[in-house]
């Protein structure tokens, strides 16, 4: 598998990957090497953005590292595992069931039956894009986004599921709600979910 290196200003590179799995392997390889002088390592859906401290040789070391890394294996050490308790009473549950051609109970069984991986973040602090969504739940965004989605909403869109860390506008289909705190900038570990973490959902009902 090959990656494409795209220059991103004088001190950073955007490593474009062939798949989300390869992106995750590249990110894990870079992060677990704990190279000095890296300012940011930001995963995206198909890319890893690596920013170095100005004047350092860190990007050269990243290149050497990736030339010899095995990007097919799911390396990167033991992932953290997080279970989120969910009340499956979301406003779009019926719509999701109809679209998938299954019952509401089956939607819950599908969503709780899978193990997800935090691929990347964005949109808001602590918002993780989780991959591993079962095929029937891969559904488009709402035609008209809601102006306000409550904090803790568990939702799906495209190949991703995720949890809104705080109330915000949003176009994802809502399955339910968790009381877990996804982000607290004053906490020792501010973001509950970080790239590479494994996540499961558990039904409270």
């Amino acid at each position, binding site marked *: 598998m090959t990656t494409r290196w795209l*220059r991103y200003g*004088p001190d950073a590179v955007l490593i474009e990957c062939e798949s989300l799995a390869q992106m995750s392997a590249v990110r894990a390889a870079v992060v677990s090497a704990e190279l000095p002088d890296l300012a*940011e390592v930001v995963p995206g859906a198909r890319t890893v*953005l690596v920013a170095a401290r*100005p004047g350092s040789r860190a990007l050269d070391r990243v290149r050497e590292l990736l030339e010899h890394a095995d990007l097919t294996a799911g390396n990167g050490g033991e992932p953290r595992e997080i279970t989120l308790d969910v009340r499956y009473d979301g406003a779009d549950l019926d719509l999701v069931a109809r679209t998938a051609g299954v019952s509401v109970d089956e939607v819950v069984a599908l969503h709780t039956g899978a193990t997800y991986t935090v691929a990347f973040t*964005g949109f808001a602090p602590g918002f993780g894009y989780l991959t591993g969504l079962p095929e029937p739940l891969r559904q488009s965004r709402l035609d008209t986004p809601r102006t306000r989605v409550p904090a803790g909403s568990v939702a799906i869109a495209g190949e991703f599921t995720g949890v809104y860390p705080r109330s915000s506008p949003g176009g994802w289909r809502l399955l339910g709600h968790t009381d877990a705190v996804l982000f607290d*900038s*004053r906490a020792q570990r*501010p973001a509950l979910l970080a790239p590479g973490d494994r996540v499961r959902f558990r039904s409270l009902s």
Partner: protein
Amino acid sequence: MIRALEVLAPGPLALVQDLGRPGHAHLGVPPSGALDAPALRLANRLVGNPEGAAGIEALLGGLEVRAGASCTVAVTGPPVPVAVDGRPVGSHMPVHLAAGRTLTVGRPETGLRSYLAVSGGVDVEPEMGSRSRDVLSEIGPPPLEPGAVLPLGPPHGIPVGADTATAPRCPAELAVPVLLGPRADWFDDAAQQLSAPWTVTSESNRVGLRLGGPALRRTSAREGDELPSEGVLTGAIQVPPNGLPVVFLADHPTTGGYPVIGVVLPSALPTLAQARPGTTLRMRPYA
């Protein structure tokens, strides 16, 4: 006496800023921090602080603060009138502020953001290693309101005495060096299109400068293409579907789904922090 600063008037927008919280983009947290970082560093040096101490970033002046205890202050950024109890003193120099005295920062004639440093630094509780207010994520102390009391840390050292510094000019036209990429190939002759004169619009803020000008055209092959979300850095020039570029500043979103045509060199970012709406940007793209 309490080592604190009381805000009497914040002006249009006054925020606590230090050098930000870089290194958290993978959690969706922007770097934030003073937009004109050299100005904050200078203000801190003038009052004897470490360069990264927290101060106040005041947009278009109008800031009025009262000292709870004797302290040294300095105001930097564009040239700006500064007064103590109504008596004019200079900007870009250390000024002694006795307990109970009021410091006023007037409106700068050019530029946007003044920086006020106080000996000991603003000592609010840091969040994720920084005291900066991030306007996008709403992390850090809220925008200052009349009556807000900001605790000050213990003074670090001796202020740099009689030192003064020259205030930089904020010209109406700026040359901005831009390194093309990562997605320059999504656009027809990116370098030539970017070289058009761009105008800073009034929709600009700490998240980014929104520019007006001739819409950037994609190549026919990339017309209507969707870009999977990818990481974004400060200085990135993102081009949304309307073709009007946004230059991301310190409070930018950490990932985005529109192509980045080029990246402004870090050395030019402080001048962008002072670019008023109406300022003309002349991009100097190179590959």
